[in-house]
């Protein structure tokens, strides 16, 4: 009875903290939102509730944990209210549990504002490498993406993505019309930080001449190198071996000498007797 009472008291002591914190579900998704529609400062609603206000073009939210499920998303002009006219509306946007997702408000190839959810690849990257993801979210035709002048990803169309694992480091990135060397965006220095998924968005409108690049970095996918190979000469091993041989010789020699001396001493005493 006594132990039960103690257990109950402990449970009560813990409970208030638990209620305030709110448990995180394993089925939550990590969601970021990118505003890639030129010219409009907006408010964003999910299932009728305000998610974001005064959201400026070219900005990316901090990650938000959302329970998995289906969401009705609505983008209005800033200050228009939950019932305001929708600039973009997307019903039933699927947010998968445990996924890392970026929802992008952007122009379609034809220039119409749309919302596209992209699932971000968070799998591990080998040591010394980075994952480069490029997403075509611009009102523009198919493009190739170049790194330091060489085509890295080809024939990308709106609203699709392409990705590759590349050496970490800073690249000079530009975007050309597919199959040509006509530069549509850039060049711009992009730091592909080791162990990250660096996501580059082409956004804006070719017709309005405001095409640009936006970048999102997700980190934590690095791997350790496969080993530290710090010695190929063997000289230290040789020295240790030589030292060991000398030591055994000394031990053996000392033992033989001691034994010999004892025998000699005993013979002398025997002779003396």
């Amino acid at each position, binding site marked *: 009875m006594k132990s039960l009472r103690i257990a109950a008291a402990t449970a009560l002591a813990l409970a208030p903290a638990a209620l305030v914190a709110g448990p995180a579900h394993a089925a939550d998704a990590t969601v970021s939102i990118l505003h890639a529609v030129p010219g409009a400062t907006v408010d964003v609603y999910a299932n009728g*509730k305000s*998610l974001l206000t005064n959201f400026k073009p070219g900005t990316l939210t901090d*990650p938000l944990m959302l329970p998995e499920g289906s969401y009705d998303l609505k983008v209005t002009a800033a200050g228009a209210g939950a019932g305001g006219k929708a600039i973009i509306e997307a019903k039933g946007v699927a947010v998968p549990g445990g996924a890392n997702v970026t929802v992008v408000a952007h122009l379609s190839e034809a220039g119409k504002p749309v919302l596209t959810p992209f699932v971000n690849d968070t799998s591990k990257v080998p040591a010394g490498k980075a994952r480069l993801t490029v997403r075509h979210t611009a009102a523009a035709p198919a493009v190739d993406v170049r790194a330091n002048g060489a085509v890295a990803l080809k024939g990308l169309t709106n609203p699709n993505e392409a990705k590759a694992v590349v050496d970490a480091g800073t690249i000079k990135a530009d975007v050309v019309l597919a199959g040509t060397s006509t530069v549509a965006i850039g060049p711009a220095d992009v730091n592909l930080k080791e162990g990250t998924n660096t996501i580059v968005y082409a956004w804006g409108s070719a017709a309005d001449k405001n095409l640009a690049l*936006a970048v999102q970095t997700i*980190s934590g996918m690095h791997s350790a*190198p496969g080993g530290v190979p710090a*010695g190929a000469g063997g000289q230290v091993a040789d020295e240790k071996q030589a030292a060991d041989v000398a030591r055994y010789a000394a031990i053996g020699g*000392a033992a033989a000498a001691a034994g010999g001396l004892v025998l000699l001493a005993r013979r002398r005493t025997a002779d003396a007797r």
Partner: protein
Amino acid sequence: MDHDVDSRRDRADGRGSRRSRGVAAALAAALLAGVGTAWLTRSSDAAPPSSTAVLDSSGRPATPSPPPTSPTSPTAPTDPDRPTSFATSLAARPATVAPAAGAAVPDRLTVPRVGIDMPVVPVGVARDGEMALPATPARVGWYRYGARPGDASGATVLAAHLDMPGYGVGPIAAVEELRTGDVITVRSGEETQRYRVTTVTSIRKTTLDLDSLFARDGPAVLHVVTCGGDFDRTARRYDENVVVTAKPTA
């Protein structure tokens, strides 16, 4: 009386038993001398090998790997009773990536008590996926993708060749003599970071926990690494890594 009995017993036993007693005495002396020599010529112990084997993959402390996220922490959804907002403040920032950091990189490793004073250069990953070390044992490589000295968390990894064909034994070999409490200094441009040795361990490469050696999170620590153990003459590789762990100190 006894004396007479003894001398008669001696003559009765004869030379044989006297000889066997002599051999026994000689063996005892030999054993004593051998053990004594072995003890006198023993190698002096460095800091005892870490019994907790923090870098042993079979026994490493459980640290959950960080969930992949953007640098800032996520905002949790609020109580559903709050009618209109998902989060009290969801911030948005310009979608750009910071250019590569221009902070100074480590350039000198000094261990005064054992006479190590070596230049340090940034290194990355070799084609075979292992850490790339400077070719000469005279220089130390700093793993450029890991923590820097002075960072709040993660392991700063410095490694140098123990020996190389043509060069001989490298200066880093002296780390074998390090003891707990010894001071190590790493200079990065104008800044100097001091460390105190906590452990010196020699670990089979097959058991070494590389994720711990190259940890990007957890407490800030210095790992100075070289090779040790047995040398395979065909493969030209040692079978162990010697790892000095040191904690930052004022």
